[in-house]
């Protein structure tokens, strides 16, 4: 249960002089317990109905959801009834916590159960527990490992994106006219939907017969341009499209960092006779390290979700060369309706991500400011 701790820890001190009458406390308790009872009863009835122990019940599980919402609301009301002023403070955080818990934790637990079942939506047998079979299948699935390997390439591509983004941020931070115009223009790719980008760039501009990019490639001496023919080039094309939409994101963060740099330090470097190149490597870059790392970490987190462009442009081809884990599982579900196996792959991916991101955060922690 959420309780504001001793009010000494608060940044905002308030006088808490509530006297809870016994009747009020009783009402609060009664409310919570009756709502919990309603929720529990609906749940049990519906579960029994679903397993065909009970003939009566509801058509769908929707009533259970309503009972949950009812319980959540009475939980909030009871906080105020039982704890007065402190309960009112708990109400700031309680809705968000209940929302996230109900929408993440339950589905995750459910997903964990699904991932140990053999469940194909297109087969008639329905779902049955099959223990570690899915896991064994995963270990010998070359396409999943291939997709994981591709993720490594995709993440490594961030280093190039970062270099370009830093360059653009430096340009925007220089003494230029029409800074606002350029900033808006550079920001625009970020606003575009990846699905639209996959048509705009992947399907039309990279069209091999008359797409403008193919024309440019021919002009530059590549006689038979094909952006999705060979595995390496296809992967590169995907990277370029993804970079195009996301470079502005890192650029804006880095620009904010550059603008917050202490002016005195930069001027001192100038007075000491630093050449621009020197002052960049010895002053600006080290000062920008925390911002850079924040930007890169967030970018990596977004990159690990990469899927839309791949699904829509190459569908993983040629031969799985461009598959990301997400797009691979998407097809596992879409084309083969393999819910059980797909969910296990997703769960394993989640665990890998958690391990990777925690390690990453621990490694970079010492270069970041203590607040991050």
């Amino acid at each position, binding site marked *: 249960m959420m309780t*504001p*701790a001793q*009010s000494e820890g*608060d*940044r*905002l001190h*308030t006088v808490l002089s509530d006297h809870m009458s016994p009747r009020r406390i009783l009402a609060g308790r009664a409310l919570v317990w009756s709502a919990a009872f309603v929720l529990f009863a609906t749940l049990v009835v519906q579960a029994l109905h679903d397993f065909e122990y009970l003939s009566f019940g509801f058509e769908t*599980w*929707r009533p*259970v*959801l309503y009972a949950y919402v009812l319980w959540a609301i009475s939980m909030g009301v009871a906080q105020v009834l039982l704890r007065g002023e402190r309960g*009112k*403070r708990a*109400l*700031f955080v309680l809705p*968000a*916590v209940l*929302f996230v818990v109900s929408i*993440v934790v339950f*589905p*995750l637990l*459910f997903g964990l159960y*699904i991932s140990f079942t053999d469940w194909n939506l297109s087969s008639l047998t329905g779902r049955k527990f099959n223990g570690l079979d899915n896991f064994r299948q995963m270990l010998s699935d070359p396409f999943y490992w291939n997709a994981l390997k591709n993720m490594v390439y995709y993440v490594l591509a961030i280093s190039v994106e970062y270099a370009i983004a830093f360059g*653009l941020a430096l340009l925007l931070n220089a003494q230029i006219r029409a800074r606002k115009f*350029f900033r*808006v*223009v*550079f*920001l*625009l790719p*970020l*606003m*575009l*939907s*990846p*699905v*639209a*980008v996959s*048509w*705009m760039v992947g399907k*039309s501009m990279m069209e091999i017969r*008359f797409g*403008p990019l193919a024309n440019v490639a021919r002009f530059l001496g590549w006689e038979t341009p094909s952006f999705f023919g060979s595995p390496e080039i296809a992967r590169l094309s995907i990277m370029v499209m993804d970079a195009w939409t996301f470079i502005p994101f890192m650029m*804006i963060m880095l*620009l*904010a960092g550059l603008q917050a740099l202490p002016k005195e330090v930069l001027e001192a470097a100038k007075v000491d006779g630093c050449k621009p190149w020197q002052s960049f490597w010895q002053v600006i870059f080290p000062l920008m390290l925390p911002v850079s790392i*924040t930007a890169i970490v*967030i970018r990596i*987190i977004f990159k690990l*979700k990469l899927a839309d462009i791949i*699904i*829509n442009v190459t569908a993983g081809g040629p031969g799985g060369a461009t598959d990301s884990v*997400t797009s691979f599982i998407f097809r596992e*579900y879409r084309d083969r309706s393999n*819910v059980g196996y797909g969910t296990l792959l*997703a*769960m394993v*991916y*989640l665990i890998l991500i958690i391990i990777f991101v925690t390690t990453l955060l621990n490694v970079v922690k010492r270069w970041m400011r203590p*607040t991050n």
Partner: protein
Amino acid sequence: MSEKTVQAFANGEADFGNRAKWYTSRVLIYGALVFWSLICLFPIYWTITTAFKIAPDVMQGNLIPWIDFTPKWLGLRSLGLSPETIFETSTVREEFLKRFMNSAITSVSASMLAVILGSLAAYGLSRFSYRFGFMKNNDISFFFLSQLILPPVVLALPFLVLYKQLAMLDSRIGIILLYALMVLPIVVWIMRDQFSAIPVELEEAALVDGLSAWGAFFQIVVPIALPGMVAAFILSLVLCWNEYFFAALLTSTDAKTLPVMVASQTGSQGINWWSMAALSGAAILPLVIIGIVLERYIIKGMAAGAVK
């Protein structure tokens, strides 16, 4: 600046060399700026002009309207939005407008929901100390932010089954809940920053004047934090409007959003370039406009986490 004032500080060859260097650096900087602007703008330009091209113009790679090719209403006609077709009934237009409205409704409501829940939570966490089992304030904050690393694919399949049981598959409300969850960490991240920048003394004064914690929040804090909330809202809006993965799996006929419509058209063979271009253009145009008009909010939102 006149020639004379420059002359006043000139001292011969060294100055001339400096000036030459200055001009080269100017040329390089503006050259790079213009080059990258072209990279950013060309795909948008290409999409919008292609919507007005007939087949031979596309094949020949004609680029400039009225010089290379004569613009035709082909793209908009295919959506039933060209001048001749706009007053006639058109099934394509109805379909398109339905998808457009779905996208608009889901992304606006999800962003609102996320901003309300996220701001309340961020305010509570920045002002009071909580204990939730073993979790203290920092852990609760981390709990919210950690949702960011959750890949959508992990939730997609359980939600598919769950929504089927709850009869919420292919419904807007289902999509709204998921989208709100998806952007909530970002809202908490931005708003936590905003609220901790507001001095507590303001609220203390309000409390002395007899307002409750909630009264102080609504009357004092919200008006001050409003720009931050707008920034969080706009960023959420962008992410929700562009979301494809959940929408592709969890919607089919009723709640299908614009990106899903665009994607289903790209797959089909023999689809005309101009109609694809018009459709993609329609999908990106609202956000392009938002990007141009509300640019400073977007930058404010993204800069929130970068600089403390």
